């Protein structure tokens, strides 16, 4: 099913916004002013973009350590995100969280956990809340192939299916957890198949094809919103950067450069841009205009962050309880 051109442009913008933000982080991280670990999602942007395009701002979202893309695609405030990288009081977590712990309740993002798998049951719980209140929100959880190792995934999926909760499980399978390849951790090979155990449906999709992701997520969101319970979407992708920080894994000797090159050739953004241009939906000029607008937003966000105040030591003891 071919998507509407406005949707296509929005998907493209959404991906590009994430990419350019992450590249800015790569550029500025060596200054050591962002004093926290950063887990970049360059190469994986299509998933956040394709999924979040279906969500309303009051739909719930839970994410993990690699959450910048999810935050932005769900409509999170970029300035507050960048300010959080810089540990400022204007950060989305007022400097308490850092890059691994970002939140924007205005758009339904209720937090990101840096404990692998930790966010999954919470996503189910938010869906339960919506169901108990009789509201039609859905809840989305993003997690990696590493989180699929954890028993909590199964517990959560079983419960969600049992209670037919409106939650969508999005597994971003980038084939590695830190440096451990999927085959060293999973006896099975297709994560999506796990849904079958619970009498539910799994969809495995090319995570670098934003339209394919959009389609799959659309099916899952519709299914959930109709009260039919969860689906498991496995999106195959690759992270270009190291597990943490702006370097690459081949430089660190953790995997081959060839593998990375292959995936760079399948860049979700470049291929989609090419398609849009070929189909006359995008031209160089519009593309540049889009990129410039995003670049401006990013520049402004970094400026905002750097101009923002650092916390006072006395802030240490606030926010424990509300």
């Amino acid at each position, binding site marked *: 099913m071919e998507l509407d051109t406005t949707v296509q442009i929005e998907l493209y913008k959404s991906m590009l916004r994430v990419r350019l933000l992450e590249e800015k982080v790569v550029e500025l991280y060596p200054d050591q002013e962002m004093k926290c670990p950063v887990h970049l999602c360059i190469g994986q942007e299509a998933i956040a973009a394709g999924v979040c395009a279906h969500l309303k701002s009051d739909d719930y979202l839970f994410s993990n350590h690699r959450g910048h893309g999810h935050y932005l695609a769900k409509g999170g405030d970029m300035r507050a995100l960048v300010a959080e990288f810089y540990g400022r009081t204007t950060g989305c977590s007022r400097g308490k969280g850092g890059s691994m712990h970002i939140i924007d309740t205005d758009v339904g993002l209720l937090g990101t956990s840096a404990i692998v798998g930790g966010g999954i049951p919470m996503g189910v*719980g938010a869906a339960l809340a919506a169901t*108990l209140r009789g509201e039609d929100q859905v809840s989305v959880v993003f997690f990696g192939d590493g989180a699929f190792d954890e028993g909590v995934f*199964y517990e959560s999926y079983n*419960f969600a299916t049992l209670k037919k909760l409106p939650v969508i499980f999005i597994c971003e399978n980038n084939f590695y957890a830190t440096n451990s390849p999927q085959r060293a951790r999973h006896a099975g090979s297709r994560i999506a198949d796990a849904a079958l155990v619970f009498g539910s449906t799994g969809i495995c999709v090319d995570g670098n094809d934003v339209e394919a992701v959009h389609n799959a997520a659309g099916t899952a969101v519709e299914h959930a919103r109709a009260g039919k319970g969860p689906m498991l979407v496995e999106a195959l992708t690759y992270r270009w950067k190291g597990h943490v920080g702006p370097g690459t894994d081949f430089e660190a000797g953790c995997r081959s450069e060839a593998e990375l090159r292959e995936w760079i050739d399948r860049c979700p953004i470049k291929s989609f841009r090419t398609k849009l241009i070929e189909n006359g939906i995008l031209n160089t000029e519009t593309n540049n205009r889009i990129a410039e607008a995003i670049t401006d937003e990013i520049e402004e966000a970094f400026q905002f962050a750097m101009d923002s105040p650092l916390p006072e030591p006395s802030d240490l003891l606030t926010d424990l309880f509300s």
Partner: protein
Amino acid sequence: MPWTKVYSDRSEFDLAVEKDPALRGLTYRDAILEASTQLLESDSDFFILGEGVDDPGGVFGTTKGLAERFGTERVMDTPLAENGITGVAMGAALAGMRPLLVHMRVDFMTISLDQIANHAAKWSYMFGGAVNVPLTIRAIIGRGWGSAAQHSQSLQAMFTQVPGLKVVMPATPYDAKGLLVSSIYDDNPVIFIEHRGLYETVGHVPKELYNIELGHGVVRREGADVTIVAISQMLSEAIKAARRLSNEGIECEIIDLRTLLPMDKGIIIESVKKTGRLVVADTGWKEGGYSAEVSAVIAEEAFDLLKAPVQRVALPNVPTPASHVLEAAFYKGENDIIEAVKRVVR
């Protein structure tokens, strides 16, 4: 105040009612059931979930009949998946509900410690106060009849060491009801630990829904010679000990903290000002237990008041044995409190 009184048994309460017919007696178990019922009636954001909450037995009676009356959506049985279900409850709390998660035994919460300590406890702080986690977790301390090592633990200290949690351990029916209500309406994660040995105790419990502010202890008995901080089921042991000691001319002041975290240091220090001596009687282990924190913090903040070292009456450093002979040797009671008092009162 009728609610500060602890009745050692049913007959003592019946006598009290004769004198004051306004006293309304309820067991500890029924106080919890009543609080849960009234919350279900009055607040649509409130719901209960946990293994067997819809069971005919109803978690030793504390949820009995609720599923029939309020439906299995609001009184929801769950799979045996403690970590996942705790995360589910937390997610529901983040999305604005006020869940009450129930565990038959606190032992099973070791499985869900990650969701409790790494998530629920940290979520407000970690996100600079952007969200809050109004989640309450009830758990019961089992004991006796060979429950043995994995079904008898008193794990409050596993929680009182986690910043971001509140920990409540009511010792009377009145407190069980009022503190449960307050825990539910607290916007933060509360671990609410009950002792099975208290379930049959009877006391005055008002009919209406009421709150007891978390964080405040209460003096259960006044006395000038030694302060006993007694936790949960140890309160009745302390009262028995105090009666016997009184016969020997030693007067104990007994403090029931009710909320372990945050600790009501003030009430302890006030008392120690008078007595100069402190005994802490806890249902948990001694080594690394909650009594260590009470001891340490009072020594820090009131060292000059102390005429003798703080004494801890708590469990020896082994798991719970099964054989009744060994159980008898393992658990602490009034005699141990009396010994501890005598070590410091000369």
